[in-house]
C-alpha cells in the first residue's frame, strides 16, 4: 500500500513534469489523472492508485499549495459524485476507459435523467420506455424526464428506463449512458423559484442508444440506480469545512459589520443557529474521521437532512436580519447557469435556493424514512405495490 510520503513524492513528480504555471489547464488535469492522482482510491489506470480514500487529502493539499488548477468540482458534481462511482461499480472495462477520464477532467459534463413528472420520490415507478430493436440490438428510448440539473451543459447522462412493463416496478428497469447530443434528445429550460433555470425538462423521442452504452444487466437498473442514489446522498458529508464555512458565514458577517441591524430576538435565533451550524460542522468532521479510519458510521445518511434544515433556517433568518434590504432581490433575469452557487449571490437568492435542499437528491421526508428503517431498524411502511406488474399500478 502506498504511504503518504510516496504519494507526496508522486505529486512532486507530476508538478515537476507539468509546472502548473506553464501548462494548459486541461493538459495538466489529464496528466494528473494519468498519474493516478485524480481520485487515489480508484484503480490504477482509471485515475487512481488503489490507495485508501483518506490519502486524497494529502494529494489535494500538495496540489493546492502548488497552485495547480482544479477540475471545477461544482460544475461537474453529478459526474464526479454519481456517474463515476456507478460506472466504476457496474461498467465494463471499455466503459470505464471511455468515460472516466473526460468525466474527471471536466471535458464531458454529466447529468442525471432519473426523475419524471410521474415518478419522483417513487422513482421506481418511472415510465420512460426503452425497447430493444431486433437486428441492431440498439435501444430506442421514448419518454419525458424532468428537473434535470445541468442537462443544458451536459454531454452525457445517466438514464434509467423501463424495459419490461410486465414485471413489478423494481425489476423491469435498465440503466443506460445516454448521449445528450443524440437525435431525439430535446432539452427545455425549466425556470425555477430563483428565476433562473438550472434544471430542465428533457424530452426523449426515438433516441437510439447502442447496447454498448447499457450499464449493468438488462433488468438490473434499479440495483445500479441505488448505487447512484447512495453516492448522491453521502457526497455532502465528505467535505471538510472551516468554522462559519457554510450558510452561517454571511449572516455572522452581516451581524458583525452592521450593528444597526441587531435586535434581541434575532440575536437569540442567530446564536442558536450558529451553535447548530458549528455542531453540524463537527458532525461532518467526525464522519470524515470515521471514514478515514475505515469505520464508516451511519451518520452520513443524516448529514443531508441536517444541512437542508440549517440552510433553510439560516437563510430565512438572514433575509429578516437585512430589514428593508431583505425586501429586495438582486435580479430575476432568466439565466441558465453553468453551476449552482448555493452561498453566492444575495440573501434572497440563498433563501430561495435553499428550499431545494430538502427536495433534490431525495426529499427530507424520504430520507427520514430511510434513517428510521435502515439505521434505527423501524418497520417499513406497509406497501402493496411491490409484487404488482408496473403496467397494473395506479397512476
Amino acid at each position: 500500500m502506498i504511504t503518504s510520503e510516496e504519494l507526496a513524492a508522486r505529486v512532486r513528480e507530476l508538478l515537476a513534469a507539468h509546472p502548473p504555471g506553464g501548462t494548459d489547464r486541461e493538459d495538466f488535469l489529464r496528466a494528473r489523472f494519468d498519474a493516478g492522482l485524480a481520485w487515489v482510491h480508484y484503480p490504477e489506470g482509471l485515475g487512481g492508485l488503489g490507495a485508501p480514500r483518506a490519502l486524497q487529502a494529502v494529494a489535494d493539499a500538495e496540489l493546492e499549495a502548488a497552485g495547480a488548477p482544479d477540475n471545477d468540482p461544482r460544475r461537474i458534481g453529478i459526474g464526479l459524485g454519481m456517474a463515476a462511482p456507478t460506472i466504476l461499480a457496474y461498467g465494463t472495462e471499455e466503459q470505464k476507459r471511455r468515460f472516466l477520464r473526460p468525466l474527471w477532467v471536466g471535458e464531458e459534463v454529466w447529468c442525471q435523467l432519473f426523475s419524471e413528472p410521474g415518478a419522483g420520490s417513487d422513482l421506481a415507478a418511472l415510465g420512460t420506455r426503452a425497447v430493444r430493436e431486433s437486428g441492431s440490438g440498439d435501444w430506442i428510448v421514448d419518454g419525458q424526464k424532468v428537473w434535470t440539473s445541468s442537462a443544458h451543459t451536459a454531454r452525457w447522462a445517466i438514464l434509467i428506463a423501463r424495459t419490461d412493463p410486465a414485471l413489478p416496478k423494481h425489476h423491469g428497469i435498465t440503466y443506460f449512458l445516454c448521449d445528450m447530443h443524440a437525435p431525439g434528445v430535446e432539452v427545455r429550460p425549466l425556470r425555477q423559484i430563483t428565476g433562473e433555470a438550472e434544471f430542465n425538462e428533457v424530452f426523449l423521442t426515438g433516441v437510439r442508444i447502442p447496447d454498448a452504452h447499457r450499464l449493468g444487466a438488462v433488468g438490473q437498473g434499479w440495483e445500479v440506480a441505488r448505487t447512484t442514489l447512495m453516492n448522491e446522498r453521502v457526497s455532502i458529508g465528505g467535505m471538510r469545512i472551516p468554522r462559519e464555512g457554510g450558510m452561517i458565514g454571511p449572516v455572522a458577517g452581516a451581524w458583525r459589520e452592521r450593528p444597526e441591524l441587531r435586535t434581541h430576538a434575532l440575536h437569540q435565533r442567530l446564536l442558536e443557529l450558529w451553535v447548530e451550524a458549528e455542531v453540524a460542522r463537527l458532525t461532518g468532521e467526525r464522519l470524515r474521521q470515521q471514514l478515514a479510519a475505515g469505520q464508516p458510521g451511519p451518520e452520513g445518511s443524516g448529514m443531508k437532512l441536517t444541512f437542508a434544515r440549517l440552510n433553510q433556517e439560516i437563510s430565512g433568518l438572514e433575509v429578516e436580519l437585512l430589514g428593508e434590504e431583505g425586501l429586495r432581490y438582486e435580479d430575476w433575469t432568466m439565466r441558465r447557469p453553468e453551476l449552482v452557487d448555493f452561498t453566492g449571490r444575495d440573501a434572497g437568492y440563498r433563501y430561495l435556493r435553499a428550499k431545494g435542499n430538502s427536495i433534490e437528491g431525495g426529499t427530507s421526508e424520504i430520507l427520514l424514512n430511510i434513517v428510521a428503517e435502515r439505521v434505527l431498524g423501524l418497520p417499513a411502511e406497509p406497501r402493496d405495490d411491490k409484487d404488482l406488474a408496473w403496467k397494473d399500478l395506479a397512476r
Partner: protein
Amino acid sequence: MASRAPFDLLYSDTEDELRSAVRSLLADRCDAASVLARAETDRPHDPELWRTLATGIGAAGLLVPEKLGGQGASHREAAVVLEELGRAVAPAPYLTSAVLATEILLGCDTASAEVAGLLAQVAAGARVCVPAVPLTLAPGAPLPAGVRDGGGGVLTGRVGSVADAVAADVLLVLADTGLYAVPAPDVSLVRAVPLDLTRPLATVVLDGAAGTRLADPAAARAAVAGALLSGAGLLASEQLGLAEWCLTETVGYVRGRHQFNRPVGSFQGLKHRLARLWLDVASARAAARAAADALATGSPDAPLTVAVAQAYCSGVAVRAAEECVQLHGGIGMTWEHPAHLYLKRAKADSLALGTTGHHRALVADFAELPSP
C-alpha cells in the same frame, strides 16, 4: 473565526475498553430497579458501586497525573465514563468528586502537602470530595461569596443546592480568604427534595467549621473557574449517554408495541420523530467529543467548544427523555418504568453548570457576535 486544528472526535481503543469495563459494572450493580429503590431511601449512592468504579476500574483518578496518585489519563477518558454513567442514570458522585473537586485541586498548588494528600485520596477513591458550590453555577458566571472566614479558617455561611454533599467525606469551600477543605462531619446539611432523585441536593451550613486552607483567594477563584469549564464540557458526555439510552430504549419499545394491528414504530409520524432524534444524538456525540478533546489537549478553543457543547447537548438530552416518556404512552408515566429517572436527570442537567441560554451568551462572546 478560523477554527484550529481539527479535534480528534473518535474513540480510541483504550477508551472503548474503559467503556466496556464501566458498562459491565453498571449492568451488574446499577440496573434501573435498584437505582429507583435506592433513590427512595435517603441514601441514593451505592458505596459498593463507587468503590468498584473508583478503585477496581480506577475511574476516580483519570484526570490526575500518575505522580500525584492518579491514572494520568485525560478528559477524553473521563468523558467516556460519564457517558456510561449517564446511560445508566447512575447515582455516583463522579461529576462532583472525580471531575469538579479533582479539577479544583489540580488548579491549586499541587506541591503543597495538603493539596497533594487530598488529591491522592480522591484519585484513589478513598475519599469523596465535593465542591460546596451550587450545581447551577456556570463557567463565566460570578462566583458566590457567601462564606466568611472569621479568622484562622473558621468558616461561617451557607451554600445552597450543593450536589452529592450527602456522599462527601470532604467539602471544598470557597470563602472570602481562599479555598478550604472542610471535613464533612464539621458541617451540617439541610437536605432538599431534588427534582433529580439520583443526584441529591443539600444546603451546606457552616457554623464556625474549621477548614484547612488550600489556596489564596485569587488562586481559589481561578481553580474553581477552570473546574467549572471542565465540568460543563464533560457534562455534555453524561447528557449524550443519557440521550442515547432514551433513544435506544424508545426505538426498541415502538418496534415491539402493537396498536392498530401494526407495530407503532411503523407509523411515519413516529419514525420521523425518532429519525430526527437520532440525528440530534449523532450531532451531540460530535459536540461532546469535541469538548472532551479540547479540554484534554488544553486547546485555546476549549471555552468556545465547551459552550457550544453545553448549548447543544442539554436540549438534546431533555428532548430525548421527553420523547421517551411520550412514545412509551401510559407506561412512560409510571413510577416503575425508568423513563422518569432519565427525564428528571436530563432536566436537572440542563440547569447544571449553566443553562443553554447562559452558554449561548458565552458563544456570543467567544464568536464575536455581540448582543444589540
